[in-house]
Structure formats: C-alpha cells, structure tokens
C-alpha cells in the first residue's frame, strides 16, 4: 500500500503541510488500521454466529438423526451422531406398526379437511372486508377498522369458554364445524394486511373504472384482486400455517381419535407411546418436512409478511 490517504494525497504533500497536517496524516493511518479491526470484528462475529447456529440447528439435526436410528443407538454415551445402520424402516413402522402406529395419513386427511375450507374462508372473507375498509368511502369505516384492530388484543381464552359452550348447545362439538366455519367471517390480521395493500393500489384505475360505469363488485373482482396476488399469497400462507399447527381448538372440539388432526394425533401418539422415540421422531419429521418445503418455496413471502407486521405495526 502506498502512502496515499483517502483523498489521494501523497505523504510528501502532507508532510509539507506542517503540524496540523501531521495530525491529519495520523488520522489517515488510523482509518486504515480501522479496516483491519473491521475485519477482525467480522471474523469474530462469524465465529459467534457459527457457534450459535450449531446450537440452534442441533435440535432439528437430532430429530432427523434419531428418526433413523436403531433403538439401541438413541441414548448412547458418547452420543451417536450419525446413525449406523440407517433404519429407514422407522418411517414404515411409524405408519404401519400394529401396536404403536401413528395414523399419519388419516390425520393428514382430517387436517386437510379442516384447513382447506378454513383458509379459503379466511382469504375470501378478509379480502371482502378489507375492500370495504380500503376502497369504499363510508361513514364509520375508520371506527370499524379501529374495532377490528382492538379485537386483536383479546386473548383467545376469554372467548374460548363461551364459544365451547355455544358449540355444545348447537351440537357442533365433535365435528369439524367449529374449526372451519368461524374462518369465514374474516381474520383481523389478514384484514389489516390486505387493507394496507389495497390502499396502495393506484387511484387512477378505480377512477377510470368508475367512469366506465363499474360498480364495487366489478372493481373488486377485476381490479383489486388480480393486483393483490402477493398480498393474498401472504395471507394464504399465514392462515394456512396458523390453521395447520393449531392445537388448542382441535384439542377441545375433537374427541374421536379417528378425527384427530396431525397436531392432536402427534400428542396422542406421544402420550400413548412416549418411549418409542425413533418412531415419534419419524412422525415428527413427516409432519415437519412439508412445512420446511413450503417455507423454502415461499421464503420471500414469509419473511416479507413477518416484517410487514413488525414494521408497519
């Protein structure tokens, strides 16, 4: 490195300047050594991140590893990091073993039976309501929006008990209905997200459509929805995940094991066979794998959706 400071002046020129410039030259060197410190800092942070990420990844790694182990290798000391032999049959057993099997396909079917209508309902109803809040000017609109936001603060336990009693009275307990029907009335978070998105859509398009005589139905269907695909994707993704991983509601509304969802079935399997670790882990991997795949395909939406709530909130 030649002795040029950041502005490109040579050290000869600087030395000619005198005391003040000598101080300036000192500052120039201070800058270059700062770069070295920068590099050391980044190196240290990198090491810390490596250590932390090993720690964070360990549980998932252990889950996969255990799912492929022979029982004898699960609890060895020192621990068996890589199963040898690899027992793929654990997965088969988890599904088919006569004594201790996890009714994966049945629970999967049940979960889909609930999730598909519920997510559809959320997306459809939330976009309709969001349209009202974003694109129709009517008195009381903002009060309603405030009310919707306020309901997000209500803890689920306060409404859970009377809802349960209500569903008992109308005979819906023991069916899938309490888990699907309420979604058709819109979800506060989705409404919030979609409203923000709809508001940003260019006003000119609506004005033009209005001149052409389009009514609200037309504008909703032909302008708002097609333009809102990313936001709709985020809403679909989040409501799918919420529904798929819901535990409390299936817990209180479903009593027949043949109707259990994947979450509930996992819990039941764990309760009945908590020593069959390799099969339990295999079942867990089977539940987790589709979620991971989904995540990798929708990573952008996922993280954008999460940050959207965090920042604009």
């Amino acid at each position, binding site marked *: 490195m030649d002795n040029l400071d950041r502005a490109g002046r040579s050290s000869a020129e600087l030395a000619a300047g005198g005391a003040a410039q000598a101080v300036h030259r000192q500052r120039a060197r201070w800058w270059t050594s700062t770069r070295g410190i920068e590099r050391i800092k980044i190196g240290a942070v990198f090491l810390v991140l490596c250590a932390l990420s090993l720690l964070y990844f360990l549980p998932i790694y252990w889950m996969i590893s255990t799912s492929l182990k022979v029982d004898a290798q*699960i609890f060895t000391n020192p621990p068996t990091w890589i199963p040898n032999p690899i027992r793929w049959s654990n997965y088969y057993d988890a599904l088919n073993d006569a004594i201790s099997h996890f009714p994966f396909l049945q629970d999967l079917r049940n979960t889909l039976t609930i999730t598909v209508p519920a997510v559809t309902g959320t997306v459809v109803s939330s976009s309709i309501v969001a349209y009202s809040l974003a694109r129709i*000017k009517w008195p009381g609109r903002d009060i309603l929006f405030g009310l919707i936001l306020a309901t997000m603060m209500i803890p689920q336990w306060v409404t859970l008990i*009377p809802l349960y009693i209500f569903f008992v009275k109308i005979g819906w307990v023991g069916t899938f209905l309490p888990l699907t029907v309420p979604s058709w009335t819109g979800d506060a978070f989705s409404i919030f997200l979609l409203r923000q998105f709809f508001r940003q859509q260019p006003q000119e398009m609506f004005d033009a459509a209005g001149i052409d005589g389009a009514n609200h139905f037309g504008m909703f269907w032909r302008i708002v929805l097609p333009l809102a695909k990313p936001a709709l994707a985020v809403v679909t993704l989040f409501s799918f995940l919420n529904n798929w991983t819901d535990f409390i509601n299936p817990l209180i509304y479903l009593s027949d094991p043949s109707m259990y969802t994947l979450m509930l079935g996992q819990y039941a399997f764990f309760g009945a066979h908590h020593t069959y670790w390799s099969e339990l882990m295999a079942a867990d991997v089977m*539940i987790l794998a589709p979620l991971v795949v989904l995540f990798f395909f929708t990573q952008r939406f996922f993280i954008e959706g999460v940050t959207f709530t965090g920042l604009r909130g």
Partner: protein
Amino acid sequence: MRRRRELLFGLLFASPWIVGFLVFTLYPLSSSLYYSFTSYHITGTPYWIGWSNFQEMFTDDNLFWVSLWNSAVYSLVSVPLDVSVALLLAVMLNMAIPGRRIFRTIFFLPQIVPGVVMAILFVLLFNTQDGIFNDLLSVFGISPIPWLSSPDWAMRSLILMTTWGVGNSMVIFLAGLQDVPAHLYEAARLDGAGSFRLFRYVTVPMVSPVILFNVVLSIIASFQTFVVPFIVTNGGPLNSTMLYPLQVYLNAFQNFRMGYASAEAWFMFLIIFGLTLLTLRLSRGVVHYS
C-alpha cells in the same frame, strides 16, 4: 344519494366481519363476563353467585396464585431475553458476514416447527439420563441437569425453549435495522464512536419503536403460552410450570367449572390489558420516533 349508496356497499362488504364479530366475539365476551359471576357446571345451568368466583380465586385457590406467579416469572424473564437475543442476532446478521443467508435461515427455521413437534422433541433433548444436552454438558465436565424433572429447572427449560424461537423477532429487527440511515453511522464514526457506542446511541434509538412493538406483542403472547408447557410438563413438576392458561384450561375442561374458569379468563384479559398499557406508558421516555 351517492353517500347512502356507498354506506350500503361499505356495510355489505364489511358484513362478514360484522357478523363474525357479533357471533364469535361480542356474544362470547359478554357471555363469559356473565358466566364469571355464576356457578356453571357444563352439565347444568348457570346460577348467579355474584363475586364468589373472584373471592375464591383470590383467597381460596392456591393454584391460582402459583400459576399467576409462574406466568409473571416466565414473561418477565423470557420477553427481555428473547428480544435481546433477537436484536443481537439481527445486528450480527446485518453486518457483511459471508453466508448471511444461510445463518438467517438456520435461525428462522425453528419458527416453522409447530409447538407440538417442538415440545415432543425437547422432551427427548432434555432427558436427564441420556439426553443429548446433558451428554454435551458432560464434555465440559458439568454434571447432568434435571431439565424437566426438577421444579427449579423446569421453568428455566421452558424459557430456554422459547429462546429457540426468536427467528420471528430477529427478522423483524433485521428489516428495522436496514431502515436506519447509513449517514448516521458514518457521522458517528467520524466523531470517533466505536462499535458499542454506535449500537447504543444510533442503532437502539432508531430501532426502538420496532423493539417496543415487539415487546408488547411478546408480552401478550407469553401470557397465553399453553401448548408447550401443556405437552412437555403438563404444569409440573410440582406445578412449577403451571402457567396461567394451563390453569384456566384445567378448570374449564377438566373440572368443567365454566363460571370459575370464565372469571379467571377475564382476569387474564385485565392483566394483559394492564401490562400493555404499562409498557406503552413506560416507553414514552425511552422510545425515539424520528
């Protein structure tokens, strides 16, 4: 005439939510308020007993106080801890580190793991005799920790499990960090600020609204934690992980005392509401809005 038409359309499009609100929010809210003043076994009918439920809660129910205490400890420890860890990770990931994407994915991955799966997995990891965590500790010469079998450690294990899931907050902080104008850092550097100073006087104030939002949401969420403690320890051992929602669940769906459980649920609502207001008030002097 136009205004009337817009009003009708507005209400029409909003009607799904309005109906839902009336049936699934307002009705249950008012019912549970009513039930909290009654004695109501699920098989019977409610009859009015005034404040007796609340009286019982505060004076005659030890489990109520235990669970309230546990929830308070859990929230007060895990929320600051998780926010700090998330912020730290975000700051580190915001630097020009090779492989940032991979790190970010690894730290976010636990978010995808459903609570049920995580609970079962950690029972395996926390196994006292043969679990991998104790195996790793023994490498450092630390004797096995009774993660889930000791009343002292069970709560700590619960808090640790929660820390595994900071990916959510981390991602939000990352985005917030990227919004901080670079010239602020440059100006501070020219004034001679080192890393810690930069963090404390530039980063934190600029990110403080995001931190606040996160803290509020985390408090609300942590007070409603149910799934993981329910599955991992079911409130034990010796009620050391009996968090408040578990106790409500017990009273409602195992003892079937709907009135009493409703009273407890309303108390939870009040606490969460109060905590949120308190946090917002306390933050006034601390949060910097640009």
